[in-house]
């Protein structure tokens, strides 16, 4: 007698709606990553402690007194996000490579780009969680108001681009011999325009500049996000096929 409760259920994915199936597949991967992370808390705690250390070190490296603060805050924040992001991206792809998880994912009957979007979104969520903690902490420690809607929008846009191109490059770097050493070397020069535009726009919002001055880097950020999401979507197949 087969127990009904342990019996394999037939696939419930409907074949009629490909868009819904795609969204479901992406959500499943995001959910898997979040749940795994919620249980181990390895990646998240590493990113968070690293970010805290960065802020403390920058304080002494740059002598963050009241006058300097306004002009360098954006730079400090983005360096922190970029390095902490690299840490997270490396880890998130390394656990897939470890014990053949990626092969398991590849066997799933879903479009390969669903894997890309799933991983990119979960990487983005990790970055955003860290940012949600770092931004108030920075505001509190340095007595500078970072809760400007424009600045928060820039942080979101910048993180989207960084996670989009980072997920693609991390997928490649974890498959090489040098593994995690390679990711920052590959990612930072390519993400250079993104970081530059993000810093420029953030400084603009922090110093209360005119919109005319900020709109250019904001447009550049949006353009970067769109271009690199599109490219990663197109070439992701080539970086995971075995």
């Amino acid at each position, binding site marked *: 007698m087969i127990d009904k409760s342990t019996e394999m259920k037939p696939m419930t994915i409907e074949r009629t709606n490909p868009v819904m199936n795609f969204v479901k597949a992406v959500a499943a991967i995001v959910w898997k990553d979040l749940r795994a992370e919620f249980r181990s808390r390895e990646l998240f705690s590493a990113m968070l402690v690293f970010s805290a250390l960065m802020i403390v070190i920058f304080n002494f490296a740059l002598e963050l007194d009241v006058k300097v603060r306004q002009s360098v805050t954006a730079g400090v924040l983005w360096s922190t996000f970029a390095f902490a992001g690299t840490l997270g991206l490396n880890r998130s792809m390394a656990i897939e490579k470890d014990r053949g998880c990626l092969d398991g994912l590849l066997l799933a009957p879903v479009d390969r780009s669903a894997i890309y979007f799933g991983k990119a979104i979960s990487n983005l969520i990790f970055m955003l969680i860290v940012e949600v903690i770092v931004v108030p902490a920075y505001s509190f420690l340095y007595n500078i108001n970072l809760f400007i809607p424009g600045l928060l929008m820039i942080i979101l846009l910048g993180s989207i681009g960084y996670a989009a191109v980072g997920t693609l490059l991390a997928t490649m770097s974890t*498959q090489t011999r040098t593994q995690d050493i390679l990711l920052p070397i590959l990612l930072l020069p390519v993400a250079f325009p993104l970081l530059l535009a993000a810093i420029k726009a953030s400084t603009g919002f922090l110093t209360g500049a005119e919109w005319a001055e900020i709109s250019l880097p904001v447009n550049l950020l949006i353009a970067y996000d769109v*271009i690199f999401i599109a490219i990663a979507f197109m070439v992701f197949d080539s970086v995971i096929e075995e």
Partner: protein
Amino acid sequence: MQSKPLALKILDVVSIIVLGISTYLALVFAPKELVMGDVQRVFYFHIGTAWTALIGFILAAGFSVVYLITKNLKWDRLQVAAIEVSLVFFLITIALGSIWARPAWNTWWTWDPRLTTAAVTELIYIAYFMLRQGIDEPEKRARFGAVYALVGGISAPITFFAIRLFRTIHPVVISGSNAAAQGSFNMTPDMLTTFFFALFTFTVIFIDLFWNRIRLGDLQERVEQLKLKVTM
């Protein structure tokens, strides 16, 4: 082993000859620039190498797309050849520009859009070779190389626009004018001759090196195959 094709041998000799002529034109024939003096003569080779390096990088991005579509390793060898030669040419461009900038701008280096883009571009293509070095499987190496060359090739022009958000002091010699640029000048007919000859020279040298490098890639491939045959 196939010997070097005759056309390539001829091109090798032609490259050396045109380089000699171009050096003569740049150092002796071209008139001395009034304000900057002799150091301006660096400019001819500076533009010559920059021009060919950029063409090489653009070609490489094109080869990426073709490789990703056709999956034919021939395109990968073309890509490596183009990037390797361009990387060296671009380094020469930066070095020559730096020599010129010292008297003209009174500094070896400044974070101007062109200079920064050049530096970041060099870093992207150095990273490209580091990526390739970490992969043993030729087919995978080619795939990853093509993806990275494509991503890098698209990011480099965006970097240029991004830094344009800040002001530039780099002169635009060929067209347009920039009031903030320092060290721009107008060319006399003799200077133009030298300039275009330098462009021609470096294009010829680029093709020659490119061809030699492709040949080297083909030979490497053959050696690998022969080694495999021996071990089997």
